[in-house]
């Protein structure tokens, strides 16, 4: 594993995580969470855990983003923090 790739993806993961919990719009949170999951999937593929990366790509980046978007659609986009 190249440590440069690893470091870049880890930095992106942390940026996505901070952005996902600090943006003031829940739909934005859902989308940034999808981006976070996808970066995480790349990180696991780099580490050689192909099955886990596969699961995360379908579950984390795919289905759970849809669930969060659906829940935001049924409730509200408004958030104070």
């Amino acid at each position, binding site marked *: *594993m190249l440590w440069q790739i690893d470091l870049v993806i880890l930095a992106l993961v942390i940026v996505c995580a901070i952005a996902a919990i600090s943006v003031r719009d829940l739909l934005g949170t859902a989308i940034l969470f999808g981006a976070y999951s996808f970066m995480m999937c790349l990180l696991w593929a780099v580490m050689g855990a*192909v*099955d886990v*990366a*596969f*699961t995360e790509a*379908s*579950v984390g980046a*795919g*289905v759970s983003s*849809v*669930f969060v*978007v*659906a*829940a935001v*659609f*049924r409730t509200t986009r408004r958030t104070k923090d």
Partner: protein
Amino acid sequence: MKLAGLIIVMICGGLLLTATQDFPAWGDPSSPASTHLSPHFITEALHETGAPNLVTAVLADYRGYDTMFETVVVFGAGLACILLLRTYTQRTRGREYRHIPTGIVIHIQDPNKAPKGQREFQLIDNMWVPHDLIIKTVCRILIPFIQIFGLYVVCHGDFSPGGGFQGGVIFGASLILLALSFDLRTFLEQMSEKALGLLCALGVVIYSGIGCMCILLGGNFLDYSQLAAVLPVDPGHVRALGMLGVEIGVGFSVMSVMAILYVNIASAGRHNQGL
């Protein structure tokens, strides 16, 4: 609250960061995690189970009992979502309209009548679909290929990355795509709520049924080598076939739970209108 939270987080993080001194070096092949149990899995799994993908071999064979209850947890999550959200309103004939400025939904019994001020009202559900022709056509072509890929991932899980969980999620995602690109009514006509619930339970039944069949054939629970008595294949492959059966059960369960979760969350339990 924010300051207290920050202090707690800093204390926890500080403790963990000091603990990193004792961790083994990064990627060390002789670290404690890689020297006790996993060498046996790596060197013996192919001969003992006949599955080249070690992750599937450990998941469905060595830790089969664990995975069975993971499936039960997923099943329980689908059940909990139905019990929490589902509301059974009497679906009488007629149509529902939403008043666009206020968001109030009204129900009109006579299907031929429409509310006054047509522009402010939006027809909910029914045959009318607000989506784009391009999206519908593309998804109609795409969904069968996604489903074939899901089947491939389930069936080829012994040899390549994949397995019941991933294939089931991909299959469930194709159903969710159907519900997104058409509407929830079309989706529930294809896969009714009852069918989803039955498939969800069927997955768990397949898994535990294969385990019980091994007991009936004279072995331990989930000891797939006993299946050689009923499956006409050579003994080297019978464990891989037992794992395949188990993975199919997991795939059924996960697929239908994903669809159940989506349908209930997207319509808040009413099953009348999706996203």
